[in-house]
């Protein structure tokens, strides 16, 4: 795609601008996200949870796909967001939007604090440290059951009507509209960020960590910044789940959630804004369908799906598809 653009670009500036331009397929994608309202109104709860998973995957993509930080503990921020929103609501303030912001702020604060450690490590040590922090936090939440409700989950969450107008209904109508809107807004933020000088610096870190200091780049400061942003975004996703389902439990912090998130992102294709969204859609729809038909053995089919994607479409679905498209164009 880049080469096709290059020949027509009149100046380097125009070339870079063209890379960031909205493409028709992107607009089509976002229009398609509105289809569930009309086509499958009975699936809006699922659609809402997919949008939340997509937002969560997008937040991981910012650090993994763009800055090359593999995290197995990203659920920590999701959980912090979820518990913050839940606890605020439990103690009497169920207004969703302010709750969302408070959750994002707290998750971001924790992300910023831990980023000072995270930014010092690479490779396996980094993965294991994120995993370790995640597990420690999950244990902490379990032992602080006076605050979190422990294994039984937090009880007594009530989310007020959105904007004082829209009740969170049983059909998930409001939930999906709300989650989708938040996802879209944060997607725009992420998209701008990726196309900014800062986004370029992040890709530099991913592409070559060693070269960065040799061109005078403060990689650690960059990593701290993006880690904080990703944490806040993950916290927002967690808060959305807490508010739309009015439940929070320890699973929101668990290793399984972090691992599942990684699977979704890699399945869709890391390092591509839409990778996490596509991965979340495919993974969650596949799971919903497989587990609907064979509740006991759906793991098998999900496994087959993953193996098939890796062997047929390396670098995730989007990565594989763009490779195929590039090869096809060359011939």
């Amino acid at each position: 795609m880049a080469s096709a653009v290059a020949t027509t670009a009149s100046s380097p500036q125009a070339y870079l601008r063209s890379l960031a331009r909205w493409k028709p397929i992107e607009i089509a994608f976002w229009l398609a996200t509105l289809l569930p309202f009309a086509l499958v109104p009975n699936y809006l709860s699922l659609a809402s949870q997919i949008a939340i998973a997509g937002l969560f995957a997008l937040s991981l993509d910012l650090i993994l796909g763009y800055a090359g930080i593999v995290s197995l503990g990203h659920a920590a921020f999701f959980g912090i967001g979820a518990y913050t929103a839940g606890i605020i609501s439990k103690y009497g303030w169920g207004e969703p939007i302010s709750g969302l912001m408070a959750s994002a702020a707290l998750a971001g604060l924790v992300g910023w604090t831990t980023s000072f450690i995270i930014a010092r490590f690479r490779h396996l040590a980094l993965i294991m440290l994120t995993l370790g922090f995640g597990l420690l936090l999950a244990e902490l939440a379990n032992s602080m059951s006076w605050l979190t409700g422990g294994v039984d989950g937090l009880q007594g969450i009530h989310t007020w009507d959105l904007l004082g107008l829209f009740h969170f209904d049983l059909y998930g109508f409001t939930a999906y509209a709300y989650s989708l809107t938040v996802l879209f807004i944060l997607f725009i933020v992420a998209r701008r960020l990726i196309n900014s000088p800062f986004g370029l610096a992040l890709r530099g870190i991913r592409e070559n960590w060693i070269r960065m200091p040799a061109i005078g780049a403060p990689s650690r400061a960059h990593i701290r910044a993006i880690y904080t942003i990703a944490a806040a975004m993950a916290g927002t996703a967690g808060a959305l789940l807490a508010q739309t389902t009015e439940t929070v439990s320890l699973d929101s912090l668990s290793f399984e959630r972090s691992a599942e998130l990684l699977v979704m992102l890699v399945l869709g294709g890391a390092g591509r804004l839409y990778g996490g969204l596509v991965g979340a859609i495919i993974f969650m729809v596949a799971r919903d369908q497989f587990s609907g038909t064979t509740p006991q053995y759906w793991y098998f089919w999900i496994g087959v799906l993953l193996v098939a994607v890796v062997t047929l479409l390396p670098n995730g679905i989007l990565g594989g598809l763009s490779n195929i498209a590039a090869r096809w164009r060359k011939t």
Partner: protein
Amino acid sequence: MKHVLRAATVLAAASMLAGSAAAQGTIKIGLILPYSGQFADTATQIDNGIKLYLKQHGDTVAGKKIEIIRKDAGGINPPVAKRLAQELVTRDAVDILAGFALTPNALAAADVSAEAKKFMVDMNAATAIVTTKSPYMVRTSFTVPQLNQTLGTWAVQRGIKNAYTMVTDYGPGIDAESAFDKGFKAAGGEIVGSVRMAVANPDFSAYVQRAKDLNPQGIFIMIPGGAQPGAFGKALAERGIDPKKTKVMGQMEITDEHALAAMGDVAIGMITAGHYDYNHKSKLNEEFVKAYNAEFKRNPDFFSVGGYDGMHLIFAALAKTKGNADGQVLVDAAKGLTWDSPRGPMAIDPETRDVVQNVYIRRVEKVDGKLVNVEIATIPNVKDPFKAAMKK
């Protein structure tokens, strides 16, 4: 915008009503269980109980065909459980929600039951407060205090004057600890120490050593079923604690069939409180076990009987309402129902909608070369003590 929203909601509601109208002659039950993951076996056993009941009694009651839609919650996952419950109600137009192996999932789905006014049958989740979350819910399993507070009282009456408690540091463990403490202290016993153990814990030797250091007359334990009871039993044997001398007590899962096989002879003498075991001596149970084995080639356990009795309750209530599946009508019909179950006499408390049943105190013995739980005492018709205390 608001109008559009309302219109869409109405539309969706209309389509749902149309759905249930089309299914005039059927009653749909949405079954939410953790079919995959760590608790898959619990789900399997509950579902087996349900399948057996349907096989024995057919799938029609009061002229209605019973249709079951199964959903996998995949372990402890309340948001998913709640969504599945929502979808079952809105998309599949189910009349009854059932299953629920795990308390957090049951609590989440209870919101849906309350909001949509759907009858809900908790076939396993055992935390006392679960049934308070929806006025349309009944329970056919047991409650943690029902077993453990009863056990605490019984232990003191049998001369165990001091005890050490060891529970896993999670909801059911903490509930069991406080229930046992309550029963034990009220009867005059003394708790000499306690420890809360890590949830992910493949090795118990350190904790057992702590208990041994204090040399109590009794040890009360509460750990999740599955792999841990076996590991716990081994730690007892290795640290030289003999359940024949130090009374090791707990809730029934620590001496279930698989746990006993894993522990071996060290389990002999362990005392547990339970509401069901496949060795319970009654004609009804013998038939049940036989039929169960014929169908699934394994013995039923307390999960199975929760599912079996859950189905019975649904059938009995529907028979009483002549097929009316309205949540309020069904729950009213369910209140006060009594029947004979493989576990013994059983009833639904009309006030709390919770299960009333016999609590059996059992001791592990070797009978014909096989380790089994032998009932040594029966405390009849026990209500959930937690709710009794709440009322006061």
